[in-house]
Structures are given as C-alpha cells and as structure tokens.
C-alpha cells in the first residue's frame, strides 16, 4: 500500500483540525500518528503568533503572511519509475545513481520516489520516506520523531509542522556503519499549496553519513508557504555531514527549524545555503551535549530582488570540552535584506568550551541591507569564545583593479563576490557541492 493523497480531492483553504484529520485519513495513518498530529494541533492553537516584541522576531515581520489563505496540502501521489524526469528541472538534481547512497523525492505532499542502494541497505541502513518508516520502523520513529531535537511544542510554526507534516525523509545508520556516498533528498513544490518537509537523521554510535537536502520550486503567483523541520541525532563518536540548499520560488514564505544533538565525540559538519523564497526564517542550532563534540556550522546566503532572509543560529554548549565553529556569509543585492543573529551559549559547568562565530555580509547595492547581531551568554569561566560580525560594501578599488586588467564590470563583481564566499566554499571538501555553489553564486550575480 502506498500512502498517497487522493487525486481530485479539493481541499479548503486554511489550517484546521478537520484538515489535519483529513490529511491523516488520506494517508491511511495509524491512530498514534493521528493522535500526535491532533495533540500538535492543540499546541498550535494555544501558542500565540510570534510578535515583533519577541526578541527572535524583532526584525522579522510576518504580518503579510496570510495563513488562512493557504491550501494546507496538495499533491497527488502516484509514484514515478525513475527520478530523472522529476529532477530534470532541479539545478544539480540529476546525478548518476552511482554517485549517491540513496534518494527520496517528495513532490508537494507526497513521496514520489524512494531508493536505497542495495549494498547500503544490506548493512542495516534505513533510508526512506516517513510514511514508510512509520509502517516499517514504528519504534524508531516514535522514539525520535519530534520528541528530542525539535519537539512539537518547540514553537508556533513547529507545532503547525507537527500537525501537518507530509512526505519527509528518514535516515538511520546503525552502529559503526560508515557510508561515504551522499543520501539525497529533494522536496519539490509545484502546486499552490503549503508544503511541509521533514528530515530525521539518526546516527548510532560510530556511524558516518553524508546527507544533502534540496528544496526547490518554480515561482507561482499565489502566496506560498513552506515549513521544514530538520532533526539530526548524532550518537557517540558518529560523524554527519549535512548540506541544505533552499531554492524555493519567489512566492514562498519559508520557515525552517533545525536542531542537532551531538553526544560525546560526535562531529557535525553542516552547510546551509539560502537562495530562494520571498522570505526565509531559519533557526539552526547545535546542542553540544557531550565532551569532545564538534559542530562546524557553515552558511551561505545570497539575496536579490525583495528577498528577506533571517538566520538565527544557536551554539549550545551544554557539556565541557566541546567545540563549535560557525561561519555564515551573505551577499545582498538590489533591495534584499538579511538579518543574522547568533548566540553562543555556554552552560554552567561547560568548561573548556571552544566556540567561534563569524558572520560577514557583502552589500552590492545602495538599497540592500544586512543586520548582524552576535550574542554571547557565558556560564562557565574557563572557556574561549570568539565572535565577529561585519557588513561591508564592495570596495571600488577592487573593481577598478580587475577592470584595469580587461575584466568587464559585471565579471569583476562576480569575481569579488565569489572571492568573498570562497573561504566557506573551500571548507566543503565535496567537489560537486563546490561546483554547485560556484554556479549558484554566478547566477545570482547575474552573468
């Protein structure tokens, strides 16, 4: 049985309890899943809408977002035989089967393709959509899904997500299994409706994996809405490289919440690339919960037109002897705006914490604007915490120097912007991702 939505059903606009029940019914979910959705719905109804008086939303205005005008889910779930036609429109989407450990494709509210390499599955690795995971591995899903990293009562939008999540991907890597090839997930929104994507990664002790999330849609006329929750659970000594590329159409209001839980000796290398959407609110956090945990958190964002990006990052040092190293870099052109706000929080007793945070912004036009707000909260005395923030324009002398060597203005600008991002790109030792980033930056500069 495939859990899919019935074709031709018309769904009324607005998020309601009835819509939650109808979604669950169409997906044929077990009672405990429906119950969890309904409990989340209650939480959603109880929580107030974030206000600009809330510190985290102070510079982020969501009043123009009309939730009651949105279709809560859409999409018809016949599966496709091959992923290539579905991915043909996605930049860097079609890759050779041999270049990935598995792929899951969600189109609107349904998973349309899911595949895992046989030799990977043989080692006990699970990679599939969440509906399948619920059927085949209910205990694992019950244990980890919105219970630890991002619980359903995390906040207003997370509660909405817990009530309306669709599709989703689940990666589970057993003890001491290391998979080098990336697990790829694509979420493609093609209909004028809200889309909810969920990523749940669980690495057992000593496991290693590489996961790439891509969110992609064309630009539609109607207001769009996307909600993603990413949960990364890193067991003792495990290693995860996580890359996320957000390239929604320009009609989308995007809300992404990610939390990683790092137990002792585990390593997370994450990269967040924000390119698309009309509005993107990203909350990205790492709980360093055991000694010698290491979180490298990288970010690249590039806004143009009227885009608004808000990145909030959290380096939560809950245990001693952990390291976090964060570098977020953004370029803004035309009338684009961005807010970066990062907190390094060192809990009591988290001695020998080593935390680094850096946010740099490059402004490419008169109207573009970036705000950067670094924060430190330190509850231990033997720690090293460094942070820095800059907002700067392109230096005219740099452009002139390149022009004086025959390089036209726009190409000179492109070189400089690419040079600005280069140190972050160089920190990702994956050629395919580097190439994608170079291309994305070139497209954004407009060449």
């Amino acid at each position: 049985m495939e859990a899919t939505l019935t074709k031709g059903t018309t769904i009324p606009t607005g998020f309601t309890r009835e819509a939650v029940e109808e979604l669950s019914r169409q997906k044929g979910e077990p009672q405990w899943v429906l119950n969890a959705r309904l409990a989340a719905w209650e939480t959603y109804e109880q929580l107030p809408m974030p206000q600009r008086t809330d510190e985290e939303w102070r510079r982020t205005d969501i009043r123009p977002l009309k939730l009651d005008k949105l279709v809560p889910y859409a999409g018809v779930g016949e599966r496709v035989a091959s992923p290539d036609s579905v991915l043909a429109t996605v930049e860097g989407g079609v890759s050779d089967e041999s270049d990935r450990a598995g792929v899951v494709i969600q189109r609107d509210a349904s998973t349309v393709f899911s595949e895992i390499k046989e030799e990977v599955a043989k080692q006990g690795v699970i990679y599939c959509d969440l509906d399948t995971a619920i059927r085949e591995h209910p205990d694992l899903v019950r244990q980890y899904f919105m219970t630890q990293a991002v619980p359903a009562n995390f906040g207003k939008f997370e509660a909405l997500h817990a009530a309306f999540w669709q599709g989703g991907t689940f990666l589970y890597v057993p003890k001491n299994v290391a998979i080098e090839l990336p697990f790829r997930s694509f979420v493609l929104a093609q209909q004028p409706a809200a889309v909810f994507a969920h990523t749940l990664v669980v690495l057992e002790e000593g496991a290693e994996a590489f996961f790439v999330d891509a969110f992609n849609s064309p630009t539609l006329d109607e207001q769009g809405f996307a909600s993603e929750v990413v949960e990364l659970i890193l067991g003792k000594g495990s290693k995860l490289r996580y890359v996320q590329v957000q390239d929604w159409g320009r009609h989308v209001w995007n809300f992404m919440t990610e939390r990683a839980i790092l137990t002792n000796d585990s390593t997370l290398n994450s990269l967040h690339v924000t390119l698309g959407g009309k509005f993107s609110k990203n909350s990205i956090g790492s709980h360093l919960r055991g000694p010698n945990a290491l979180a490298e958190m990288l970010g690249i964002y590039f806004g143009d037109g009227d885009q608004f990006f808000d990145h909030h990052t959290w380096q939560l040092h809950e245990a001693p002897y952990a390291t976090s190293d964060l570098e977020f870099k953004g370029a803004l052109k035309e009338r684009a705006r961005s807010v970066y706000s990062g907190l390094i929080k060192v809990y009591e007793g988290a001695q020998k914490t080593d935390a680094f945070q850096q946010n740099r912004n490059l402004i490419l036009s008169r109207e573009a604007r970036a705000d950067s707000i670094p924060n430190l909260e330190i509850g231990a005395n033997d720690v090293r915490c460094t942070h820095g923030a800059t907002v700067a324009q392109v230096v005219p002398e740099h452009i002139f120097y390149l022009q004086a060597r025959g390089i036209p203005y726009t190409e000179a600008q492109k070189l400089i912007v690419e040079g600005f991002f280069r140190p972050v790109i160089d920190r990702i030792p994956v050629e395919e991702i580097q190439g994608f980033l170079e291309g994305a930056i070139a497209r954004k500069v407009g060449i």
Partner: protein
Amino acid sequence: MSTVPILEIENLHVSIEDKEILKGLNLTVNAGEIHALMGPNGSGKSTLAYVIAGHPSYEVTEGSIRYFGEDIFEWSPDERARKGIFLAFQYPTVIPGVSMANFLRMAVTNVRNARAEAAATDGGSAQPFTPREFRKLMREKMAQLKIDESFANRYLNEGFSGGEKKRAEILQMALLEPTLAIMDETDSGLDIDALRVVAEGVNSLMRPDMGVVLITHYQRMLNFIKPHFVHIMMDGRIVQQGGPELALELEEKGYEGLRAALAAGAQS
C-alpha cells in the same frame, strides 16, 4: 609603419575632490619609445597613470588623451585594458578570495578575445586560447620572473611582500602583452636581484610597436631599462624634458637644484 602616436596627451587638467592636480600636461609617446617620468612626491605622476587607465575618481576638466588618435575618455577602464593599455600599479590591490590563477585566466581571456576580434575585423585571424595553453604560458612566465608556482593558488596579492607584488604586476603585463605600458614605480620595494629580474622581464617584453612610460624616482632602474626620453614633472606639469642625461643631472642636483635652475632660466 603608422605615424600616429600611441599616446598623445594635450593640455590635460585633472581634479580630484575639486583640487586641481594636473595643470596642463603634455606628453607624446611613439611606437618603440621608452619615456621616464620623474618628479617629487605628490607632483601628480600616479594621478596621470590613473587617468590614463580610467580611474573613476578623477575628473578631467580640460584637455585630451588620444590613443592611436582616438579619444579615450569614453572608454571604460576594462575597454582600455582590452585595447592594450596597461598600468602596473604603484600600490597593487589585495583582493581576498580571488586566486591569482583564476584572475589571470579571466584577464587574459578577456584581453585575448578582444584582440582576436579586432584582428578578425581587420581581416586577420582570431587565435583562441585553450586552458591548457594558458596554464603552460602562465608557468613559463612565472619561471621567467622567478615567481614560485605556488603563487598561482594564492589570493590576489594577499600576504605578498612589496617586491612580490611588483613582480606579480610584471607577470600580468607579460601575459597581457600591452601596447602601452605605464609602470608606476615598479622599481620601488625591489631588492637588487629582483630589480634585475624585473628589468630583464620588461626589456624582453618590449616590442617595436610598443610604448612605455616608466615612472620612477631612481636612476638605478634606468641603468637597466634605457629610456629614450626623460621628463621631469612638478606640480602637475612637465617642466623639463631631455635625454637619459637629464636623469643623471637630476640625481646630482636634486629637485631643489633643478627648480632653482629653472627659475634662473625663466628670469634671464
């Protein structure tokens, strides 16, 4: 052989932030000529170099600059470079994140393509450039200028020593093969051996159809690169011109002495 000068500057007046720096400057450079331009600090030598290269901060209030008879003021800095004008900067710019190799490839591609197109419209044949050919050429020129290969992967001028920056400027010149080269104090900051390497590099780049303006404070550079003409610039004008002997005279008397001699000459 064309008789139109490569560079012809007439009565050039240039201001920056409403302050007049160049006050009626004249200079003509013909094919095959090397001109040394000397003058005290602040006399306007770099200003002249920047204006020829098209720096947007300077305002030309009067006069003209012609390149092969064509007015250059309408041309953007990159157009000028593609037409064969090259400025070796007195203070080369550091650009973080941009690798030398990437930058050089882009510069050379743009300049070469423009040249190939111009040659094609003149009935000549275009010569495109493969990446392999480019790498080979770059390595060759780097070896000639005794620049370590590792510099290709470094960011543009970042962390380069003073002398290394100057050598990198000449590397760019060697790859771009300009028709008019303005070299602004390329000799300053070079040790004796580096000076010889750079000077030999410049001499080997000299072609009969090329003109050079060598801005310098010191005779020692002119021992290696022999100028045909020496111009002394003071307060935004060229106040004296002569052959190579003028530089020697200047070395002896200094600008004060020269100024006094000029004043005496003006009175008599």
